[in-house]
């Protein structure tokens, strides 16, 4: 493939699309008031819709990738135990695809719509909630290691962490109200200051990354860095 197709055309498309979106964002209000704003809004909205449409089509690639990976795993597995989860993945995937495709409401196959809701409500949601709940154990073990007064910062973290735990306990709320004031002050001033510092620097970093992308210096999103 020539450099024209591999590099120049994608970079030109990026530059033009980026510029249209940028100008639409900065200069065009939600409800247009001037005739010159119309093309910016039209092309801006169209490009955004294209991006969303393409992103949804690409889900097919994901399905192919995961299917190939697990098919290979099933073929190479030495025991049924090794194969089990990959086979189970295909069964669940097939169930979701069938119910998802034919579960559209108000059609002759309407009963399947209820099955889709059932899968969402009684299979996916509880599983998600279970994994989410397990986070508490990871946090506890992480905190256990963090709350060691080996350094000055570690000691400060230990003290503030301990006060935060006390803050959430009714006993201390009733008998040591100064803890509430202390933690509120820490949360509202030093912590917010630190967060804002990080936010400003991250936003600037993202702006500069955007500029590098627009001018064709940052090409990682194309799948190469040449």
């Amino acid at each position, binding site marked *: 493939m020539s450099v024209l197709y591999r590099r120049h055309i994608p970079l030109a498309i990026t530059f033009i699309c980026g510029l249209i979106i940028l100008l639409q964002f900065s*200069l065009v209000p939600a409800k247009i*008031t001037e005739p010159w704003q119309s093309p910016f809004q039209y092309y801006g909205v169209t490009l955004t819709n294209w991006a969303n449409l393409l992103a949804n089509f690409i889900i097919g690639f994901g399905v192919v990738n995961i299917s190939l990976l697990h098919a290979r795993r099933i073929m190479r597995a030495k025991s049924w135990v090794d194969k089990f989860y990959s086979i189970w993945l295909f069964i669940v995937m097939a169930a979701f695809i069938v119910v998802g495709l034919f579960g559209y409401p108000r059609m002759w196959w309407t009963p399947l719509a209820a099955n889709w809701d059932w899968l969402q409500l009684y299979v996916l949601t509880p599983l*998600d909630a279970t994994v989410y709940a*397990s986070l508490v154990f990871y946090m506890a073990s992480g905190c256990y290691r963090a709350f060691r007064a080996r350094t000055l910062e570690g000691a400060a973290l230990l003290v503030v962490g301990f006060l935060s735990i006390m803050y959430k306990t009714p006993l201390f709320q009733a008998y040591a109200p100064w803890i509430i004031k202390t933690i509120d002050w820490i949360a509202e001033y030093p912590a917010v200051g630190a967060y804002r510092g990080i936010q400003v620097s991250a936003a*600037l970093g993202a702006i500069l990354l955007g500029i590098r992308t627009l001018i064709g210096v940052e090409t990682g999103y194309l799948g190469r860095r040449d």
Partner: protein
Amino acid sequence: MPFNGLSLDILQIVAGRHLDLVVLLVIWVLTILGVGMLKRGWTPKWRKIAGLEALEEVVGRAAEMGKPVHFTPGYGGLTGATSPQVVAGLAVFAELAKLCARYDVPVICSVGDPTVLGVASELYKQAYMAEGKIDRARPEEAIRYLSGSQFAFASAVAGIAERERPAGNVMVGPFWAESMMFAEVFYRIGSIQIAGTARIYQIPFFAIVCDYVLIGDEMFATGAYLTKEPYGISSIFVQDLVKIFALALTIVGLIAIHLGSKVLIDFLQW
């Protein structure tokens, strides 16, 4: 004046967007000026980013142990508000894949969004091609789309960690509640970890558990830092200049507001 019966407030551009555009253009011009200065022989002083310098350490350790290296850009995609973080993560992956190809270390890239899949796959192949080892590239095994659902993705990454026991774990991109899960699971299996995110509520988790952390703008500078080409260097220099300017504005704003002036607020809302 009302327009078509609508209040003028609805019709106006969101406050501050004109200034956004002007700042962007100023940064752009400054970057180009910086490139000109670099071409005339100016060399800025670089601060080393420990997290990026440690990539070689991660791959070296994996080579010694005969184990793979795991990478994930999170489950953010190339469309949406978190896409800059994903692009920054992919820049790290490009370098990591190159190092892995050089030292013959298998790399596993866990992807949570299909839009990233093709890009990561291409970066992986390019890395092997650059090292002259394209025959050893196995993109279909290395680049894995796991799930678009947050906790299914988290469980799958934890499963990979437990089964394949990578010697190193690099996580750069947008992360949500799964950040602590990943960091803890890889800590337990003894992986050396580099993490980076611009999501401020996840940075403390990474800071507690991981060996190296890329904070705030450090992760966005990755591509420029690693390639060290003039536009990249210049943009990082301009980034620092604007950061100083933002700090100065904060101090001026603080003084102005205490003196009862709203000049700066009006200026920022232009």
